């Protein structure tokens, strides 16, 4: 079974997304929530890195956190799935363990 990794800080400000991606195993799920959601805009400089990561990891972003910051789900990098809190719970239940990259 795979791990769910959560990242809650802006990848422009902190290294925790980078560290997460450097340790996650193929097939693991990653959820970006809280301030981490600012990194997912298709026009941003992290788009390429996220698209690459989506080749081996299951990337998700929390919809309520996107909405809070005025980010249209249509502008999110392709390959990242938008979920709500219920989806976060489902990812937790499906995973073997949850690894929070604080």
């Amino acid at each position: 079974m795979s791990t769910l990794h959560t990242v809650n800080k802006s990848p422009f400000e902190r290294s925790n997304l980078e560290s997460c991606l450097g340790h996650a195993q193929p097939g693991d799920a990653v959820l970006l929530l809280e301030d981490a959601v600012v990194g997912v805009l298709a026009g941003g400089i992290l788009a390429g890195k996220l698209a690459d990561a989506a080749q081996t990891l299951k990337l998700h972003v929390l919809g309520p956190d996107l909405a809070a910051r005025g980010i249209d789900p249509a502008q999110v990098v392709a390959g990242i799935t938008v979920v709500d809190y219920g989806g976060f719970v489902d990812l937790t239940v499906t995973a073997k363990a949850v690894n929070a990259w604080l």
Partner: protein
Amino acid sequence: MDEMESGIVKKFMFVNRKPPHGTVYALEVLEMVLISAAFDQDVHLAFLDDGVFQLKKGQAPAGIGVKNFSPTFRALEGYDIEKLFVEAESLAERGLSEDDLLVPAEIISRADMGRLMGEMDVVVTA
């Protein structure tokens, strides 16, 4: 209050480098800015790095259970706080443009932002 009539006018800058909602800083800086209006100072607001998201249009935080304070930025003009500066490179790196901003602001380069910061008497960051 005496302090509001000190006669001293300083260049104040409130620097915003963090996104809204993930922390309370954006909201509580705004409270500082509103208070500063009563002191007749030369107030500047700078938005750089992730702080540019504070001015993003369309913020709807009901789903995370917190209040949407972003319309308050529109009220700043009524307090004569009109010097809002947004860093161009910060917008571009994040896939944002001037059209994404909910209030008029002057878009300046990183180099100009650095020079402007250097002219300040008081810089407050959260």
